[in-house]
């Protein structure tokens, strides 16, 4: 369980995140949804203290994160980066094994864990274990990135637009794999995206951010049926409008055909 209390980040006079309060229940997947500059990535990074808040606090299972040594906190929280951030000088195996080895796991246990995780993210361990990141496709890199975030067996997972740079089909497959893994392992997850469809498909609940403020938080259905303001209403209607455009094209094609 993650709790954000009046979380604020200011750079000079500019508030990037402004008085954000939210909670994520155990095993829940919360999507932070917003455009660029909405403060969603900053919020995510304040959870594992990659960025220190100006004020406010984060509690994980009731403990304030400010009371935990940052690198120890981060070893307990899986994190998948927007730019994937696989270390280019390490093999796939070494990348996944980073956090476990920092935690001092036995080599045998690490090796078994790497195989388990590669299988979980639907990659073949025997083929890929010793490859370097630059020998992988974009989709494979993202899968390894997720495997690395899960490696230490943490129950909390933070993901920053992890599937952003992929083609639609690959993204779709990864989203499906990820949903399965998240349910199987019952991971408490915060998932940052600006993609409306992704948010609707993955989120147990969605928190809509704009200019550093929380506009509304609720299930996809709640946001659809009771949008808090015009911004949310417009946001929620985009998938439907896109579907209508596609529909129209289809009917036009049918009449001509």
């Amino acid at each position, binding site marked *: 369980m993650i709790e954000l209390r009046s979380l604020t980040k200011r750079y000079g006079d500019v508030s990037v995140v402004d008085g954000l309060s939210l909670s994520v229940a155990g095993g829940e997947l919360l999507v932070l949804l917003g455009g660029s500059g909405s403060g969603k990535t900053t919020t995510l990074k304040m959870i594992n203290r*990659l960025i220190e808040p100006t004020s406010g606090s984060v509690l994980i299972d009731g403990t304030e994160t400010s009371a935990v040594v940052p*690198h120890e906190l981060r070893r307990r929280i899986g994190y998948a980066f927007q730019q994937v951030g696989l270390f280019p000088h390490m093999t796939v195996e070494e990348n996944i094994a980073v*956090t476990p080895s920092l935690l001092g796991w036995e080599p045998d246990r690490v090796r078994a864990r790497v195989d388990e995780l590669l299988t979980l993210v639907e990659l073949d361990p025997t083929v890929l274990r010793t490859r370097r990141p630059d020998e992988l496709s974009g989709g494979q890199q993202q899968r390894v990135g997720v495997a690395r975030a899960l490696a230490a067996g943490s129950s909390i997972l933070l993901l920053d637009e992890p599937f952003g740079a992929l083609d639609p089909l690959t993204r779709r497959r990864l989203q499906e794999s990820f949903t399965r893994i998240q349910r199987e392992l019952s991971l408490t997850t915060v998932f940052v995206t600006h993609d409306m469809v992704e948010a609707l498909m993955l989120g147990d609940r969605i928190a809509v951010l704009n200019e550093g403020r929380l506009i509304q938080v609720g299930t996809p259905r709640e946001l659809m049926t009771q949008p808090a303001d015009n911004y949310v209403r417009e946001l929620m209607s985009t998938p439907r409008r896109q579907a209508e455009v596609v529909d129209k094209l289809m009917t036009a094609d049918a009449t001509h055909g």
Partner: protein
Amino acid sequence: MAEQLALLPEYLTAHIQLTLVALLLSTAVSLPLGVVISRTPWLEQPALGVAGVIQTVPSLALLAMMVPILAGLELPSIGFLPAIIGLTLYGILPVLRNTVTGIAGVDASLKEAARGVGMTTWQQLGRVDLPLAMPVVVAGLRTATVWIVGVATLSTPVGATSLGNYIFSGLQTRNYTSVMVGCVAAAGLALVLDSLVLAVETGVRTRRRGLVALAGGLGALLYLFAAVTLAAPYLADRERPVVIGSKTFTEQYILSAILAEWIEQETGRSTTLRQSLGSMVAFDALDAGDVDLYVEYSGTLWANEMNRGDETASRTQVLEGVEQFLNEGHAMTLVARLGFENAYALAVRRADASRLGLSRIGDLRPHATTWALGGDYEFFARPEWRSIRRVYGLEFGELRTMDSTLMYQAAAQEDVDVITAFSSDGRIRAHDLMVLEDDRGAIPPYDAIVIASRRLSENEPMVIAAVAALDNRITVDRMRELNLAVDEDGELPAAVAERFVRELSR
């Protein structure tokens, strides 16, 4: 060529010792410093600034500056130590700068990922920053390697044997085979060390264990070789040889070889030569006891050490003054006057002299304003030049600075009209030049004298007695012949010295 190659083991070993020790020390300083700087941004500009300033000091000057600094600290001021310190300082910048820029150049998203997976600052450094910066750091290391191998040739004037011995003595005695052997050997060494560094880096990056083991093993062997050869003189329980110094010109190479040959023959003591020392380095080294014996010139001490160059004084007055200065000021001994002078002298073409009736320096006066005077690198800054101008009222149309080995030819070819010749140089006669008489005593006398350190004077009476027997045994004509044999006939100083000592013993 064979004579030159016979010296290669000694010179190359010394060069390898200098290079490897300096490289190790400068990396040991610059790599951690670079890491600290990359964690402490405000340090970056000052540290890189200081390293950059050190780099802009001409390398020869940097090495030479170590001599007075170490002497001031009462440490061994010539030989291995000043060379090592100078080379180490010189090698710092490339590794330091490349470590800093290499770490700074690591992708920011990877640095964040390193923190995100739970690395501490030092784990991030060791597991992400340094491995990713390694190609850049190694590029700096390779630059430092090549630089240090090159600059180590300049260790010779501060008294450390190196491949520079070939180059310095070769340039002075116009033995271009010697120069070439020195250059080729240094270039070869640079190439070998550079390849080893590159091979280790490539092996690590591509995870080829065999390559790392091979190149790393060869490097380790070289270090072992340097360590063993450095330690050997200390382990062998031997009497310290008599250390004979020489400056960087032909006459000095010959005289130091004569002293060595003579002492070994007369006393059975072993000797070792420290050749191509800078002029003031030799005196400081004798003062510090790093050198036991060398040939100096009375006027040099009179002008440079005693600051009396602007006085006019007779040959005897100068000698007496110098002897007193050595005994009282430095506890050194003037052991022998060899019997000739090697003074600055103005020389003209013999044809001009007879055509215009020139015989004394004063006779130049009507011609000087339209004539060019050629002098060595230091002459126009020396008190002798001030004194000549003052006493004879001479103003030349043009002053040209050139290497002293080229002056005589320049006069013969009419590039210049008058040169500041050295009176014992055989090339005066060989190029049909004539020395003008200094009838008004403007130039102090430069008697060749053998001076000995306090250590030698106090502990080795046999050696002192042997050297004292050389008193007045070399006339200026004889010295000119010996110099000419090297400068024009291409004989080696050692061979000329051996012949002379044989004659002396008959």
